């Protein structure tokens, strides 16, 4: 893993326990995670201009706005719209999931139904494919 170039992943997740788990796991898999818990902070991170390879997005977040709002903003931004987004949420409803897929996210996962390595594995594969 060390030999690979580190991918930067922006993680929007609000649950303290899960933030920690995601950060650890992504780090272990050679990612450079940036952890935020609100849509606002996520946008701020993007605006900093640092290269972001991929987004890990929860639906419900702290602050105002949810994952959908974030995706809409990204897709409307010429520089961000091609960054792959993986929505990882326990609580999104069927219409929301449909909206995510229609907006062109890469995949949707229900957290409790998946091992974290499964999700990270999928992200890695999609990035490899892209490269």
């Amino acid at each position, binding site marked *: 893993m060390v030999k690979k170039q580190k991918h930067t992943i922006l993680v929007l997740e609000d*649950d303290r*326990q*899960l933030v920690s*788990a*995601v950060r*650890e*796991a992504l780090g*272990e898999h050679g990612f450079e995670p940036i952890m935020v818990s609100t849509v606002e902070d996520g946008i701020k991170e993007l605006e900093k201009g640092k290269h972001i390879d991929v987004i890990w997005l929860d639906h419900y977040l702290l602050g105002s706005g949810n994952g959908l709002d974030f995706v809409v903003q990204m897709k409307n931004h010429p520089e961000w719209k091609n960054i792959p987004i993986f929505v990882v949420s*326990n*609580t999104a*409803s*069927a*219409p929301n*999931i449909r909206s995510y897929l229609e907006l062109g996210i890469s995949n949707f996962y*229900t*957290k*409790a*139904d998946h*091992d*974290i*390595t499964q999700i990270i594995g999928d992200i890695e594969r999609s990035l490899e494919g892209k490269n």
Partner: protein
Amino acid sequence: MKKGGTPRGGWLLLFFAPVVLLIGSLLVAWTEYWFPEIASLAPWTTWTMLVIAASSAAVVILMIIYTLPPYIHFAKKGEEAIAATAIGNERYINALAGSGLGFWEYDLSTGEAFYSARMMATLGYPDHDQIEQMTFWYNSIHPDDAEGVKRAMEYYLDGRTREYAIEYRIRRANGEYLWIMDIGKATRDDVGKPQKIAGVIEDISSVKRVQEVLSARTTELELAKGKIEEEVRNVRKFQKAVDSSIEAVSITSPDGAIIYVNPAWVALNGYSIEDALGRNSRLLKSEETKPEIFQALWEKISAKLPFHTEDIVNKRKDGTTYLAELSIYPIAEGDQTLFYVSVCQDISLRKEIDRAKTEFVSLASHQLRTPLSAIRWYSEMLLSKYVGELNEKQRQYVGEIYQGNLRMVDLVNALLNVSRLDLGTFAIEPETTSPVEICESVLSELAPQLTEKKQTVERVFTQAPKTYLADPKLIRIIFQNLLSNSVKYTQAGGALLAEISVKQNSLYIRVTDNGYGIPKSQQSKIFQKLFRADNVRQKDTEGTGLGMYIVKAIIEASGGQIAFESEENKGTTFHVLLPISGMVKKEGSKGLT
């Protein structure tokens, strides 16, 4: 006839006439002898003799004249009496013969008995008078009656009873028994000792038969009366029960006219009894009820089957509506429906509570997912050696935490599915699927268990349609539950079979095993929420008891049917039919997982 003595003077004549004649003769002889000896009297001899003879004759004639007329009169009376008796006897005989009465007479001193021809004929013997012993009569009496007849006769002869009259059975010549009425009267001597007894018998068999029929009819009528009274009591009891029921009960005639409503019905709907009677039960109909409910209702009750729904909305007199649970029972006799009994309840509140409860389960389950995700991911990370190698025990324990967590995730997902099905919020998103592929994918997931239990799976997919329009998640849930149940509830080395084909213009899915089976007594419950059969609960502690409930709800929501047959320790087969046209899209806030 008045009894008269013999006339007076008869004895006088018989005794004194010879005496007078003898005295006259002696005097004539004496005159003849003595008068000639006395010369002076000689010429008077003849005259004296003549006078004596004439006197005795005169005396005798006088006596005769005095005595004879009463005797002539007496003789005449005698003749009349004889004639009258003869006429009388004839009358009696005619009367006896005409009446059909048989006459008998017993001489108590000799034991001899006289039986009239009519009586003999009645008893089936040759039609003429008969002299017999009394024992002939007594021996002919029916053994059951003989003692009674004997006693009646004795009591009468002893003077303890005033009359002899008794009904009994007597044997005819051909051995049959005849009911007769026997009435007799005794002739007694001066001290009251009976000498003879005579009487008549009458054949009362037909009377007896009528009596028996009447008695049987009377008994029948009394029984019927008792039954009717009991029925009336029952009807009153039921009427009271129905009247005091807290459920609204109404009865309608086959054309829908209301013929009865109970007080609860009046209270629920706001119509008085007078308002309701005679009106069509449609008066409660509300626009809010889906038309297919009424269609299903008519289909059921016109097939004389009970109908039950929890989805009907009724309208009260004041225009307000309520959600009702309604059961309609057609009451039929033969082919004819007599009336419909409807039992109805306002379930608005219950439904609201149900909904709140289900929403709570949904919310709680969602909230459970986040901590479950944390447990899953952290235990997974421990096992992934990120933070160093675990020793064997540690790895085993964390492995158990991870597995326990997976079970909890399954349970939460099942609860969410149930709440979505119950709330009707689940979505159906049909797309072109391959049922065989989905089935194979489920089987490959089950491969570890199948291998561990050395179970075989026969696949019957040759008639399977290539594609089917369905929500793949729902088809997956169906296969997942049916197949994992078969694996779980079949002994090691058992055989499973999965079939996908087209039958009855439907997609047909069959899953069969030769496993533990479902006990007969519990087969009706297997689609109930949280039900697990006794025999499998003892063998396997896992399982939520929600799977079959979910499967059935999905199949029914897709317009399909599910059925099964099962025998304990022989195995179970599930049959699923889904419309060949596929599932119909249904918007919903949640998909099933």
